[in-house]
Every structure is written in structure tokens, then in C-alpha cells.
């Protein structure tokens, strides 16, 4: 996974264009006290507003809150409940888990014994091959969902598949993709992962038409935007699924949606996903766990229960910018998520100096004003 230590660098200016004015959301107006009238020594020495803001950010900040795991409340805290909980643990690990692993293994055997022949033997007959591969990918995803005893309730009419249409959803874990994929074979845009996940990505997911990106590559953005556009225009391609947050968030908050999905000139169909925390906290904290550990955790929990809402397709309104389009609240309202105005990529990079400079500029101007007043 991406290492966070020692690789932080200032985000490029391209990311700046993505953002609405963060100052609208940060707590106080200007963090630096602006002196009024005559400038005194006190005005220059009193740095308490800036210090207070800094201390406030140290004590609690809206960005870190988005990535806080929220395990369910421990209920095994007394003499009667503890043995019950122990029985539960035994049941989950020694009975449920082997059964689920078995189900998953069977699923993989079936899948591979069908997929490999279809992939190689039907090389000539592309249409049929694509249809079968799509059905097989949906199948293996259903097996995955079964292996966590996934109870997924789909709401709302699923929009009919048309060209020039993209789907966007909030992102909590890579299992979001699997849950959606079991119903419809989407083509998804994903970060390329190492290990067995990467292997699956390059072989099987390739067949449904996935697009890879690399967060750390600066030029990557242009290439990806081009690929997105090409894919969405193609009539034959699987419908495109995009997670505009760009990173996994803990299903209680949602970070800013990147505008990439909203400037393709397509209809955007929002999908909201909300997991029921009572059964398991489905948030994949990629800084704390590998995906394998995350799956094992799911497979040793009671169930993964979630709601999926297919929401009304949206189009760009006349006079609306893609950023404003991306900022529309539809998914977070439906899934009960609190919106936070930070770019999800700040997990991997530092904020641009632009914000600090704005504060510096307003203070500098008031100091200069005070100076001018003196000279009059």
C-alpha cells in the first residue's frame, strides 16, 4: 500500500482548481487578528488567534475524523455476557469461518474453470466472450459477498444502461466495488495495488474494462481523464463506476468529490452505500490493515449488512461548473454522511501553500494599512 511516512510532498497546483473555498468551512474568520486603527506593539505581538487555531487543529480536526475506525461498542462487559461472547467467538472462528472459506474456494474453482476456457477459446467471438466474462465476474462477486454473509438491500430502480452514463458512489472499502459488481458488471477506475489484488486486477478485472491510475504520478491525471472520456463515450463498454472521493472514508463522513467524474459530459447516476455498524465496521483503514487482513476480519464477523441506494440520474445544469456539480449533496444526504471540505488525497500529501498564503496576505494588508494611517 502507499507509504505515508517520508513521502509527503506539497500537492500540485492542479489539485487547487478542484477545491471550493475551504475558508468557508474552517472555524474562525481570519486566524490572524487584524488590527484596527492605529497599529500598536500589542497588535503585532499578540499571536493568540493563530496559536488557538493551531492548538484547535491538534486537539481535533475534521479531516482525521473521516478516517477514524469505529468498531462497535463492546457489549461483553459483565459476567453473564462474557461467556456468551466467547461462545460467539468460537462459533465465528471455528464454524463460520471454515464454512465461508469453503464457499469461497468452491466459488473460485467454478469461476476459474469457466473463465479460463472462455477467455482463451472464445478469442475470436468477442461479443459472446464479453457477455460470459461479465456474467462470471458477477458470479465470483456473489461468492465473495456470500463469504461474508453479506446482506445487501438494494433500493431504487437501477438506471437502465445507456452510453454516456457514469456511476458514482461513496467509498468505504474495496468491498464496495464487489457489492456493486455482483449486481452489475461495472468497469471501475481503481488504484493499482500490489500483491494478489494487483494480480486479480490485471487479469480478471481487465476483462470488464477497468482503468488503472497511480496516485503518486503527477502526469497520470491527464492520461486517466482521457481514458475515462474514451470509455464513457464507447457504446460497447461496461458502465463506468467511479469513486470520486479518491480514497476510503469511514462511512460516517464524506470528503470532497473530485470533479473528474463530473466533467465527462455524461449523465451521472449517484449510488449511496451505507453499512450497518452493529454487525461489523466495514471501513477499510488502508493505513492500518492490508486488504487480506480486512477480508479476514469480515469473514470472521457475523455479517456485512448494508443498504445500497440507486439514486436519480443527474445532469450538469446550465451555468453550473463541474466543481459545483460534484458538490451537490445527494449521496451524503441519502447515506447520512457528514460532508467535510477536504481533499481525500491529503492523506498522502500536504495541503498547498495557497491557504496559508491567503491568511498571510490578509494580515499583511492590515499591517500595511495601519502603517499608512500612521504616515498620514
Amino acid at each position: 500500500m502507499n507509504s505515508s511516512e517520508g513521502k509527503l510532498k506539497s500537492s500540485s497546483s492542479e489539485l487547487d482548481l478542484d477545491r471550493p473555498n475551504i475558508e468557508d468551512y474552517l472555524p474562525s474568520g481570519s486566524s490572524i487578528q487584524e488590527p484596527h486603527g492605529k497599529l500598536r506593539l500589542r497588535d503585532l505581538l499578540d499571536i493568540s488567534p493563530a496559536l488557538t487555531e493551531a492548538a484547535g487543529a491538534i486537539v481535533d480536526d475534521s479531516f482525521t475524523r473521516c478516517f477514524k475506525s469505529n468498531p462497535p461498542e463492546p457489549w461483553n462487559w459483565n459476567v453473564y455476557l462474557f461467556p456468551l461472547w466467547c461462545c460467539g467467538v468460537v462459533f465465528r472462528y471455528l464454524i463460520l469461518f471454515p464454512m465461508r472459506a469453503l464457499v469461497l474456494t468452491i466459488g473460485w474453482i467454478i469461476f476459474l474453470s469457466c473463465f479460463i476456457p472462455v477467455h482463451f477459446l472464445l478469442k475470436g467471438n468477442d461479443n459472446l466472450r464479453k457477455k460470459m466474462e461479465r456474467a462470471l465476474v458477477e458470479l465470483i462477486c456473489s461468492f465473495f459477498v456470500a463469504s461474508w454473509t453479506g446482506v445487501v438491500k438494494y433500493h431504487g430502480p437501477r438506471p437502465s444502461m445507456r452510453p454516456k452514463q457514469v456511476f458514482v458512489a461513496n467509498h468505504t472499502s474495496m468491498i464496495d466495488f464487489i457489492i456493486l459488481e455482483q449486481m452489475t458488471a461495472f468497469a471501475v477506475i481503481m488504484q493499482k495495488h500490489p500483491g494478489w489484488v494487483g494480480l486479480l486486477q490485471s487479469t480478471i478485472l481487465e476483462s470488464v474494462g477497468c482503468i488503472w491510475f497511480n496516485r503518486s504520478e503527477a502526469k497520470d491525471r491527464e492520461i486517466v481523464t482521457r481514458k475515462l472520456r474514451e470509455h464513457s463515450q464507447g457504446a460497447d463498454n461496461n458502465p463506468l463506476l467511479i469513486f470520486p472521493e479518491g480514497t476510503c472514508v469511514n462511512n460516517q463522513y464524506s470528503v470532497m468529490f473530485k470533479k473528474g467524474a463530473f466533467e465527462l459530459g455524461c449523465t451521472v447516476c449517484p449510488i449511496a452505500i451505507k453499512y450497518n455498524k452493529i454487525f461489523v465496521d466495514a471501513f477499510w483503514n488502508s493505513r492500518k490493515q492490508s486488504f487480506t487482513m480486512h477480508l479476514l476480519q469480515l469473514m470472521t464477523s457475523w455479517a456485512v449488512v448494508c443498504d445500497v441506494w440507486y439514486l436519480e440520474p443527474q445532469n450538469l445544469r446550465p451555468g453550473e461548473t463541474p466543481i459545483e456539480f460534484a458538490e451537490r449533496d445527494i449521496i451524503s444526504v441519502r447515506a447520512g454522511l457528514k460532508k467535510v471540505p477536504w481533499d481525500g488525497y491529503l492523506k498522502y500529501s500536504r495541503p498547498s501553500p495557497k491557504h496559508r498564503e491567503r491568511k498571510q496576505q490578509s494580515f499583511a494588508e492590515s499591517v500595511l494599512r495601519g502603517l499608512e494611517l500612521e504616515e498620514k
Partner: protein
Amino acid sequence: MGNTSSMLTQYDIEEVQQHFSQQEIVSLYERFCQLDRNGGGFVSGEEFLSVPEFAVNPLSQRLLTMLDGLNFKEFVAFLSAFSPRATVQQKIEFIFKVYDSDGNGKVTFNDMLDVLHDLTGQFISEQQREQVLTKVLEEAGYTKESLLVMSDFVKILGSSGLKMEVEVPVD
């Protein structure tokens, strides 16, 4: 990290409990563990900078010299100046420490110039900064060569109703 408050003993709480209530200390401990990602028992400068709201603050670099490598006890001590129960004297002492980067108890013209530079960035020239600072210093009865000590700061800032408080969220 699991139930972090169980790792904090009553003895630990009493050791650091000067200006914060019991629940606030528990909250601060959870926050400390959240910031201390590699679990080493102290928070590095990098880990503080991973909080975007902190990183965009103009004084962040200056504060990092005070914050780098703090353990939990030092972390609470650092934040105690921002508690509503801290006295004005303690708050002014904190501000003094921020200015007095070499810790010798004296704040020089250059120290003040440096902080002013942090706050104004590239939007004022160095010359204008010097000009402004010299002017207000002289009006207050000091000179460019004056070395300000703690009592000077108390005199200058004490009367102005210093507001420097942070609320610790208690779940």
C-alpha cells in the same frame, strides 16, 4: 487501536491533570494515540503535519520545534496553556516561549521579526516589516536593540483580554 482509555491508568491521569478534567485527559489520550500512528509513544513533527488544518497554519513550522517528539505528558503540558482554567500569566508565558526560539529568556528584535515574517509571508517586504516593528517598538518605549523579557510581555499583552482557549471534545 482498540479501547485506548483502558491503557491509561488513574496514576497517569493524576500526573498530568493540571488544567484538564478526567474526561478531557482521556479524550486527549485517544487523540494522542490517533496522531501517534506508528505507536512509538511520541508524536513526530511529520505526524502533526499530517493534520491539514495544522499544516496550513502560518505558525506551524515554529510550533513544530516545540512539538516534535512529544510524549503524552509533554503533549498535555503543551496544550494546558489553552485550557480555560489556565491563567493569563500562563498564556503569556506560552506566547513568550513561541517567540524566544533559543530559550534564553530574552526576545530580540530578530525573534519578533521572524514571527512577523511567518504571519505575513511574502506579502510585505523585509524592509517594511523592520520599519513597522521599529516604529511600534519605539512608540511603546523600546528600541531596536531592546531585549524583551517575560515581564515586558506581561505589560504589553496583559491588558488586552487575551483569548486563547481550545475546547477538548468529550464523547
